[in-house]
């Protein structure tokens, strides 16, 4: 069972990473980001329940809560980018460089 859990979480983590790194739209990257955090929560929760230690559950739960908070901030920022007239893509965020 833990083999399945770990392989799923590894796959999902890598997909999340790919999503963040490859996609151009900010929202798609954001989805990738959320996916990575969910995967971590998954790994924590499943390992906890398989190994019988309660600490993992608390961690998983709190991670979900933190992910939710992060989501709020992320979406607000992305919408601000959109409301300032620029398309919500990485190309529009190129001014700071050097």
């Amino acid at each position, binding site marked *: 069972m833990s083999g399945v*859990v770990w392989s799923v979480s590894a796959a999902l983590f890598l997909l999340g990473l790919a*999503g963040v790194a490859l996609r151009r739209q900010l929202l798609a990257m954001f989805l990738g980001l959320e996916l990575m955090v969910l995967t971590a929560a998954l790994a924590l929760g499943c390992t906890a329940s398989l190994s019988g230690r309660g600490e993992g*559950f608390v961690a998983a739960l709190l991670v979900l809560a933190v992910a939710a908070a992060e989501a709020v*901030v992320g979406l*607000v920022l992305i919408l601000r980018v959109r409301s300032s007239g620029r398309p919500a893509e990485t190309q529009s965020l190129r001014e700071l460089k050097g």
Partner: protein
Amino acid sequence: MIPWFAVFAGSAAVAFAALMITRRSLYSAAVCFLAVIFQLAALFYAVGARMLAFLLLLIYAGAVAVLIVVSINAAQEGSEERRRWNQPAFSRGLIAAGFLPPLLEAVVLLARGGTAPAQAAPIGDLALGLALFGPYAAAAEAVALLMLFAALAVVGKPEASR
């Protein structure tokens, strides 16, 4: 013996995740994201962490995913993406595919009388609650504060756009 239920849920999650990052349109990505959440909840359930499965669905599917869909909608007005959403053929199929696996799982669970196929002993939900407000109170408090400050993101207009 192979935990078929967990394997099915896991592979579905991976499939939808892959689909999510490859879809060009954001709406379909959001739908796939929802599907992934369901499968993760199923996986939690398979492993015996019923409370987590339930909380995941409650927090994520309920709040965050909706927020994401609304944001995608807000971020796309006037673009050609919105027009494509109206063509039923394409996205409706996706929605159907998205919700088929949870339906099947629900049927299996009901058939098995609500217990997870794997025989892992579920951790008491009471223990989780006690831990949250016992030794881990500081962490819970901190997360609450974090939620508060995250909410401040919405308050007030940034100087730049004024």
